[in-house]
């Protein structure tokens, strides 16, 4: 029986620069109070000029490695979940690997939007616990320490004009890093499931550049028309997303035989905080047990859950059970139960 993998270290990084609602109000042509009221997002943070997700993740990684008592040289694999890589290619994982001074181990970027952290965590646990070959006693020793990074720099791709008022205030920048491997301390993943529904892609997307568009992926006209900005029909998605979040949450609770009342905390993330709260209520978790990362620092697609977890974990005693759930573009969504 291979050992269980745990999150041996966790670090999070929100950029120093806070972008308050009143600051956005000027460019978006709406008052700060109105933005807060309408979006449910209190504030968000903005990466410094020239910084990509790999820069934010680097700072988070140093904290996570130190907590995990892991040297960079021990890392066996780097998995980076992001929707907004530093450059188009190569991926943010390659940049992070170089900035960390990590050995020439695999560095992989995954795209699963707001389910990115769950996707990458699932992969990391699978790599860290799966036997190297049929009949082998232990897990593959190459993957005893897997670095999972999840984060975004959304701010450089948002419409900072009144036509962006609907979506722009909802997003934020940030990153988190988890070191995953077999060990004695740190939360373990008791259940994790995630899903995709590819029949509603255009309900929440950023279309351009689009390699499918012949003969040019992106033109001046596309940029002038703002087709390189995120677009979403949030009203049309609200009910469905609420249902999906609740369903996935119930599923993972069921997987580990837990009732909602046995949870010590629940982090539910969606770009519309009220939808996340409704889903939490449907599952039977309410009040101070519920955290919605987007409300605290904007929607950081792949990174929100992991950053929220890092903020929330102080004060959670050993044995605490935490529900994580997130949904976003794709549509991709999922849930997990962690036990501290």
């Amino acid at each position, binding site marked *: 029986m291979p050992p269980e993998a745990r999150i041996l270290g966790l670090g999070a990084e929100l950029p120093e620069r806070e972008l308050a609602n009143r600051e956005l109000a000027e460019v978006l042509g709406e008052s700060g109070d109105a933005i807060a009221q309408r979006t449910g997002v209190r504030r968000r943070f903005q*990466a410094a000029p020239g910084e*990509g*997700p790999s820069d934010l993740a680097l700072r988070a990684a140093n904290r996570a490695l130190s907590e995990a008592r892991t040297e960079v040289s021990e890392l066996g*694999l780097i998995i980076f979940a992001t929707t907004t*890589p*530093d*450059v*188009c*290619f*190569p991926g943010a*994982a*390659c940049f992070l*690997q170089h900035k960390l001074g990590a050995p020439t*181990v*695999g*560095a*992989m*970027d*995954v*795209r*699963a*939007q707001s*389910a990115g952290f769950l*996707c990458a965590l*699932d*992969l990391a*646990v*699978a*790599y860290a*616990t*799966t036997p*190297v*070959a*049929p*009949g082998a006693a232990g897990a593959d020793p190459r993957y005893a320490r897997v670095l999972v990074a999840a984060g975004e*720099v959304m*701010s*450089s*791709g948002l419409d900072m004009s009144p036509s962006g008022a609907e979506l722009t205030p909802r997003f934020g920048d940030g990153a988190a890093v988890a070191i995953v491997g077999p060990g004695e301390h740190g939360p373990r993943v008791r259940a994790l499931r995630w*899903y*995709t*529904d*590819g029949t509603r*892609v255009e309900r929440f*997307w*950023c279309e351009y550049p*689009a*390699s*499918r*568009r*012949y*003969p040019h*992926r*992106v033109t*001046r006209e596309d940029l002038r028309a703002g087709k*390189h900005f995120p677009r979403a029909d949030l009203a049309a998605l609200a009910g469905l997303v609420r249902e999906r979040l609740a369903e996935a949450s119930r599923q993972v609770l069921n997987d580990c035989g837990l009732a909602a009342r046995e949870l010590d905390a629940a982090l539910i993330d969606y770009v519309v905080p009220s939808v996340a709260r409704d889903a939490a209520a449907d599952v039977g978790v309410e009040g101070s047990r519920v955290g919605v990362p987007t409300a605290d620092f904007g929607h950081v697609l792949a990174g929100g859950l992991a950053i929220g977890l890092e903020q929330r974990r102080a004060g959670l005693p050993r044995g605490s059970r935490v529900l994580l759930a997130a949904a976003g*573009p*794709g549509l*991709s969504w*999922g849930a997990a139960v962690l036990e501290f």
Partner: protein
Amino acid sequence: MTIERTRILGVGTALPDRVVANQDLVGRMDTSDEWIQQRTGIRERRHVTANCGASDLGKIAAEEALRSAGLRVADIGLIVFATLSPDIDWPASACLLAGKIGAGNVPAFDVRNQCSGFIYGLSCADTLLRAGRARYALVVGGEIHSTGLDFTTRGREVGVIFGDGAGAVVVGASDRADRGILSTHMHAEGKYAGKLWLEAVASRRTPRICEQDLEGDDPAVFPRMEGKFVFRHAVTRFPEVIREALAANGLGIEDLDLLVPHQANLRINQLVAMGLGLDETRLVSNIERLGNTTAASIPIALSEALADGRIAPGKVVCLASFGAGFTWGAALLRW
């Protein structure tokens, strides 16, 4: 039931109809058939001629792979899509593919590891299946390069190389512990990210894409490459990772029946084969006809080698890649 060993159960490919010969590029840029062939070995490649995304080609390849595996889409529990030219900025091409093939609500994600994307994606699928996450997985490599290349003299060094295409495999349990995917090996060296890269869209700049990116002597929306530098590293890393994969399974070069390398450059693959002591019969090559299709090249080459009988039960086959990142990797299979 636990899957102890996975294997490739079916393969499929999709290529656009339009064949673009070197001569067809001559009118658009200052180049010649001889110049291109000498440097790359490429004679022709495929380009799309209308709106078509990586997931559109991926769908054709995936459905063919399902048929060849004797499975239905409802059997698939996981989709991994390897690409560097996704249909749209986001969400991932895996989501679009899942919707197009009617895959229900299975997990679907993109792996963005350029020329090594298929090896990395195959490694993910192999690991997740053995970890019990699904019974069958689709791993697709698909690219539409031609809508993002500079076909003027300014971009000729990169523009002539890449082709459009897709390849897919279905992965599932092997009925024999000694047959299937024996091991996978992944590497990267991000220090050289800037030696072969595509800058825009770049979240680290504000704005991450703008009109100036489409203009000038060196537009940020086109890939850039230091060809000689990449070449030097490729001819070192390829043999290194092939030997690593063989050694991990107690095998040597003499045990290797067929090398299916990423098709980046015929000269690279010839040098690698020569260095390893592999003659032409043990090297798969199709870059002459298809150019470099990055994440799609290995599953396409694998499909062709299966079709022409070069791969048969019991054969030891090594899939290997090197490319942007830098990333490189290998998967060793006993068919």
